[in-house]
């Protein structure tokens, strides 16, 4: 198999320069390789720049340092191969579910005849289970359905990378679990590469292959990357009851808890990786440094 790098973040940094005030360095020195088909979650305290990192991968914001490459081509702007599901569904309220998905399909598959585009949209709406609701407007469906519609819109572009920005943050626990399972199913069925920003440690562990844990900002860096040692497909209940799950979870919580007590103002540059966390052999050393 020829080794071609898929999604690479190389020494990525982001500094906001707002007139007058001194520039705010949000992210620094982010190195990360994501393989094709991998599911990576990123967690960290609020304001550590997770969402900014996702925006840069989406091409909605420019990296001020370093570069982000997909298949060794640098990302310079948004593109249909990197679909985004936003935290607040961001469906257009004046379009039906079908209309919202059609907007994406029409924008990406411009050469296909109308009937084929329509079939594509309906296929994806069916895959997220909204077939009966495709003529409804966003205000007529529940929060979970809106997020499904957002996912259908993203997937209908047939992206290689799916970027999820706290996609289930606003949903109740049951709906959230249901949607997680659906995203995992779509991930497995379509060979997607997924990058997910989340606040929810259980969600990160249950869904992802690796968890990127961020230091606190400013100048946030990758603190640790934790490989999740569970085979797929995963079974929610038995997994969450297992001791292994508790161990991974404890590792994440400990990391975040330690971060909380570090003064944001005196974050030293990471010179040595923090002590490895023992979860079998599943811990990769911190990549930042």
């Amino acid at each position, binding site marked *: 198999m020829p080794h071609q790098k898929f999604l690479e973040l190389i020494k990525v940094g982001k500094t906001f320069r707002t007139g007058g005030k001194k520039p705010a360095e949000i992210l620094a020195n982010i190195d990360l390789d994501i393989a094709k088909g991998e599911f990576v979650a990123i967690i960290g305290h609020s304001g550590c720049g997770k969402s900014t990192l996702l925006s840069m991968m989406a*091409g*909605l914001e420019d990296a001020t340092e370093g570069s982000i490459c997909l298949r060794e081509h640098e990302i310079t702007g948004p*593109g249909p191969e990197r679909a985004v599901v936003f935290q607040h569904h961001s469906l*257009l309220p*004046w379009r039906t579910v079908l209309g919202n998905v059609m*907007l*994406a399909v029409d924008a990406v598959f411009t050469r296909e005849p109308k009937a084929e585009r329509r079939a594509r949209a309906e296929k994806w709406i069916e895959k997220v289970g909204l077939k009966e609701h495709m003529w409804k407007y966003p205000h007529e469906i529940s929060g979970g359905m809106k997020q499904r519609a957002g996912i259908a819109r993203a997937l209908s572009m047939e992206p290689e990378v799916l970027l999820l920005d706290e996609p289930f943050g606003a949903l109740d626990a049951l709906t959230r679990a249901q949607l997680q399972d659906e995203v995992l199913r779509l991930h497995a069925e379509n060979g997607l590469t997924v990058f997910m920003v989340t606040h929810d440690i259980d969600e990160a562990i249950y869904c992802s292959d690796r968890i990127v844990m961020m230091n606190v900002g400013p100048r946030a860096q990758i603190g640790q990357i934790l490989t999740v040692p569970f085979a797929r497909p995963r079974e929610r209940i038995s997994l969450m009851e297992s001791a292994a799950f508790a161990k991974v979870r404890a590792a994440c919580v400990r990391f975040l808890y330690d971060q909380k007590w570090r003064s944001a103002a005196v974050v030293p540059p990471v010179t040595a990786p923090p002590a490895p966390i023992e979860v079998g052999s599943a811990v990769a050393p911190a990549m930042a440094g």
Partner: protein
Amino acid sequence: MQRFASALDICGFGWFAPLARLPSSPDRMHELRQFTLRVGLPMIAISTLLFAWHVVATSVQVGGMILPTPALVWDKGVEQVREWREDGVARTAHTALVAKTAADQGMTVNEVKQFMPFQGKRLFVNQIWLSLETVFLGVGVGVLIAIPLGILCGLSGTVFTMANPLIQLFKPVSPLAWFPVVYMIINKAVTSQDPLLPKSLVIAAIVVALCSLWPALVNTANGVANVDKDHRNVARVLNLGWFRTVWSIVLPSAMPAIFTGIRVSLGVGWMVLIAAEMMAVSPGIGGFVWDWYQSSNDIALAYLVLAVIVIGSIGFFLDRLCITIQLLLSRGAIAQVR
């Protein structure tokens, strides 16, 4: 019935919605109470005003002039409507006569009309129609200029910075200040003896347009500039082109703001219209007011008060019309009505 009730709500007859819901409502007392409140409270206010008016009008005399009572103004209103009906009958009879004469003499209808014109009076009800035509013409022209300009201002910071001082400069100018400028230009520019539209109507409409275009412009610019950031990002992720972004994302989300602008513009236009018609001596409601104001008749005051009430009612009706259109166009109402 529920649909009918929400349709009533949308059309501005929300007062009656509880009555419409009454037969199917699980809590009939509640609906009745609602109706009593929504209709009763305004009725109390209106009757208090009418009563106070009546008392003042019958007990106070201003320099020997008798003030019109509500009953007198009502009579004048009824009289105007009756005259309008009679005029309609006379007009139909005249049309028939003209047609018969034309057939008898072997001439065209237009030729007969030349020597047998209809000798109608200037009627208040017809003047209302003329005023409505003028205000729609004026506001229509104003809005047609304002919306494209507003979209440009909202999309481009450069255009907005260029236009903003001009908008701020012209926005507060009174119709009375615009009037002489427009009057002199149109008077000299229109030389035809039989122009497409009467000169006075054109002048009034232009003054209306000049005053009413600003609210629509400012609101449109605001609506276009404040499109939800998430929706803008959707357009960017989908790589929509400039035109697609404006057409599919920007305009629909600015639509409520644009409609609010049109609504304010129509309100301003209606206020300006009366002044413009008075000065232009255009035969609209403003002209009616001007004619009675010029007469030294004591009864004039009754007609003037009638005019005030009619102007207010039509302004209210126009506003309701705008709200109804806006509600129908907005997504929530579409779902409700269907």
